[in-house]
């Protein structure tokens, strides 16, 4: 176990990642704004916390979760596991034979999204801005359900080999129709929730699942069909977050009517 070395390596990577952000922020601060940042000391300490936090987080994922998660994705997509014995006719696999893959895809999509730090950050901000109307867990669960559904549907697409853009365009049409009916205050946040889902925890595991599946399903190519899962993960949370807002609004209306009618 050479983890002390690994941590240093992750630290170097993360610092390299953050460097452009620091250069831009302090460059503009010094040259354009020319005004001191309020509580500079506290902000700098916070930045160090963020940096160290990410390093531990990434390193821990690399030690504990990514190896086993990637191995599981490979094993679950292995025809020998799905179909019993290898010498059976692999060509005869039907999309139904992959039920465990869809289940795993939905479960891993949901659970990695709950752990995603970027989503947590947006949820904290959304709660603050909406004065508590949007709860941190409510938003995260809505996004996670969307991610789980999206990834499950994405694995189904890889298995059947249907063209990616049909699914995505259908998703767009649903988003546009929902936008017309959803409460105005949720729309921007819902659109944002697509992009924040796919970050440090989700992408490596989902990519491993897609590549594993595309390389074992007969007739698929890992290079051509392995992509597209991330796109599903980005699209579906938009739909579920708007649905979450629509359902809460509808329940409030129903509750409002009830108190109104009993009041009379």
């Amino acid at each position, binding site marked *: 176990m050479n*983890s002390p070395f690994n941590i240093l390596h992750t630290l170097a990577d993360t610092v*390299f*990642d953050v460097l*452009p*952000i620091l250069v*831009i*922020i302090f460059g503009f*601060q010094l040259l354009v*704004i020319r*005004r001191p*940042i*309020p509580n500079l000391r506290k*902000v700098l300490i*916070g*930045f*160090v*916390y963020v940096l*160290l*936090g990410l390093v*531990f987080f990434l390193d*821990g994922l690399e*030690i*504990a979760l990514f190896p*086993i998660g990637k191995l*599981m994705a490979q094993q*679950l997509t292995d025809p020998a*596991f799905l179909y019993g014995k290898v010498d059976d006719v692999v060509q005869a696999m039907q999309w139904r034979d992959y039920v465990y893959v869809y289940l795993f895809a939905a*479960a*891993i999509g*949901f659970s990695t999204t*709950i*752990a995603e*730090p*970027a989503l947590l*950050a*947006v949820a904290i*901000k959304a709660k603050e*801005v909406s004065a508590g109307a949007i709860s941190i867990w409510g938003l995260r669960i809505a996004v996670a359900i969307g991610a789980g559904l999206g990834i499950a549907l994405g694995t189904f697409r890889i298995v059947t080999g249907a063209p*990616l*853009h049909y699914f995505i365009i259908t998703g*767009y049409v649903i*988003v546009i129709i929902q936008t017309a009916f959803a409460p105005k205050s949720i*729309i*921007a946040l819902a*659109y*944002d929730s*697509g*992009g*924040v889902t*796919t*970050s440090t925890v989700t*992408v490596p595991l989902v990519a491993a699942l897609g590549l594993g599946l595309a390389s074992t399903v007969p007739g698929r190519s890992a*290079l051509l*069909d*392995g*992509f*597209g*899962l991330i*796109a599903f993960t*980005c699209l579906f949370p938009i739909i579920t977050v708007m649905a979450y807002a629509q359902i809460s609004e509808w329940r409030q209306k129903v509750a409002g009517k009830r108190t109104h009618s009993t009041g009379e």
Partner: protein
Amino acid sequence: MPVKDFLLPFLRSLLDSLRNLLPILLVISFFQLVILQQPIPNLGEMLYGIFLVVLGLTLFIQGLEMGLFPLGEAMAYAFARKGSFLWLLAFAFALGFGTTVAEPTLIAVAEEAAKVAAAGGAIENTTEAMDAYAIGLRLTVALSVGFAIMVGVVRIIYGWPIQYLIIVGYIGVVLMTMFAPPEIIGIAYDSGGVTTSTITVPLVTALGVGLASSIKGRNPMTDGFGLIAFASLTPMIFVMGYGMVIG
């Protein structure tokens, strides 16, 4: 300050972080033990890794509230007070471009895309050609994210409803899909999701919300969010365009 005042909240946030990780641990153990019916390998190492993840998440959230959120908001207020529209646009572009060009997930995706292009015969199957293709792709995505944050900031300033811009973007994606080479489509669609990193998201969100709350007549809820949405839409269009030009 007594140790208790520091230690108790810290322990509480450690517990919160553990709760955030619980779903993954349950899913992995369930599939490993029940479906695949195999033992969990290296349990000790795994517990150590989980401890690191929990500690890291706790520090990250702490730093978020102390550093990233106030920083993004302070810059938004400063730009709004200064009233310099062009400098704000330059900052928005630089932030989008600078945070994306070095993004590790994007680097990985660009390398995969170069392999696909070489296998499909769009470029020569040499290391130099593939490297050039990958770097071109990274610059394309970074440009598109810079452009997206800039457009998003203009939208906040003028208070345009976000859905019209997003629908225009969707139409752009659909149109490009019709003309782009089929092998680039999957990569292009994925590239939207991989551009926004864990540090960029809080910073950009705080910037948007800060701008919307410092400009009169803007609502931080309806106008402040939405920057990330643009940043995950434009790369799809730009990458398909790149595939058409190179292919």
